[in-house]
């Protein structure tokens, strides 16, 4: 290993995932250095979301390996099963946060409680510390006046802001955003993308962003991956991806989404 080539934060090798007869991921190899913002684009069903779900351990891969900061997320010896595999996965998973398309807020907790829950019960913060921190994160996402609101009292955009604050409060090194604007009313999408764009500039957080928002991918990421049928077809800087893609399949896809 040459000097300066530090261990990538995410290292994926030969990753396969099947759902029954359908192979959703057909051999993914990917390195993501710490701090990089990567957008993932591609048609529905191409495996983008499945990759994020495998990284969050919500789906178990059938083959291949995922290392986070050099630690195996799916230890081969236990094959991810059993107590030891579970403990290891929990330890590695602590570096990863995720924001979902459907928000998945806890409906019986206020915005503040949603954001405080994991810092108190996973990181061991005191109630007081967690409250301070959660209030700050909620203020950061523009909801300083909604601390005591329940999810049912919030709009879709506000719910997604709470979900982002909740994920940020765990201070993950790697953040996964899974089509976080797809369930929003059109007029709310812009606000969330602005917030996401701010996050990409102000933190050294590594991000994998699955999105259908091409202008966002173009303006806010360091790197864009084009997925098709379970493979990374093209991997390029945004300028190259959107102006001079090398593959026909990429050109076809971009043409269809950019000039519908």
């Amino acid at each position, binding site marked *: 290993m040459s000097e300066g080539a530090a261990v990538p934060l995410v290292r994926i090798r030969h990753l396969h995932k099947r759902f029954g007869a359908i192979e959703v991921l057909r051999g993914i190899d990917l390195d993501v250095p710490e701090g990089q913002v990567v957008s993932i684009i591609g048609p529905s069903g191409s495996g983008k979301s499945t990759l994020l779900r495998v990284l969050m351990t919500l789906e178990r891969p059938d083959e291949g390996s995922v290392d986070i900061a050099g630690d195996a997320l799916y230890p081969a010896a236990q094959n991810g099963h059993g107590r030891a595999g579970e403990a290891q996965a929990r330890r590695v998973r602590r570096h990863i946060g995720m924001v*979902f398309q459907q928000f998945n807020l*806890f*409906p*019986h907790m206020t915005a503040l409680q949603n954001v405080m*829950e994991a810092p108190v019960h996973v990181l061991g913060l005191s109630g007081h510390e967690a409250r301070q921190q959660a209030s700050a994160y909620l203020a950061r996402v523009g909801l300083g006046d909604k601390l005591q609101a329940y999810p*049912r009292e919030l709009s879709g955009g506000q719910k997604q802001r709470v979900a982002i604050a909740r994920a940020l409060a765990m201070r993950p090194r790697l953040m996964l955003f899974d089509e976080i604007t797809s369930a929003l009313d059109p007029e709310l999408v812009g606000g969330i993308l602005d917030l996401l764009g701010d996050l990409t500039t102000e933190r050294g957080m590594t991000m994998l962003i699955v999105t259908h928002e091409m202008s966002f991918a173009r303006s806010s990421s360091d790197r864009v991956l084009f997925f098709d049928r379970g493979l990374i077809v093209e991997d390029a800087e945004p300028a190259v991806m959107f102006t001079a893609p090398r593959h026909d399949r990429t050109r076809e896809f971009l043409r269809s989404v950019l000039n519908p």
Partner: protein
Amino acid sequence: MRLDWNWEFTLAILPELARALRITVAATLVGAALALAFGLALALLRRSPIRGLGAGTGWVVEFVRNTPLLIQIYFLFYVLPRFGLSMTPFVTGVLALGVHYSAYTSEVYRAGIDSVPRGQWEAAAALNLPRARTFFRVILPQALPPVVPALGNYVVAMFKDTPLLSTITVMELLFTAKNLGAETFRYLEPFTLVGLLFLVVSLAAAGGIRMLERRMPAYGA
């Protein structure tokens, strides 16, 4: 044939029936507490990832549900003492009710748990929340409100099954009414009163459940 209802006799036996009603209600409340607690434990065991434990629990639930409560009561009362385990009739009866109904409540809990969207489990996993915390603080608070009416209905059903305890000499309503009849050869008033008492308490309990149901939070996503 004519009914010769005796009001004097009716008033005379009321205090004794009221005492018996207290025992009936006590048996129901303790039995319900056991059924709700055991049922949750069974529902949890049924989800256990430990090989065989989940399936084994399922068999136990099926066994208890598909054998008559009366036989279970007899078994606990007449057979267990042969193995050196003697309990008072009341304790035996309450335990039988609790175990029998836990098989039903466990299925209700299961339905409630299954109704919680998968995204809630996933959000908890993404936050790395410990298993127990996820279950008791994230999933269960959402699983319970929709099934409160079903759980309540089983409590009322259990109340109506308490006369079975008369067969093992628990001094509940039916047992007391039978005794009164045997002493006086008057059966009309005791059994009529017992029926009415069951009706009144059941209706009141059903009303209580409906009130509780209305007070339950409805979580929209």
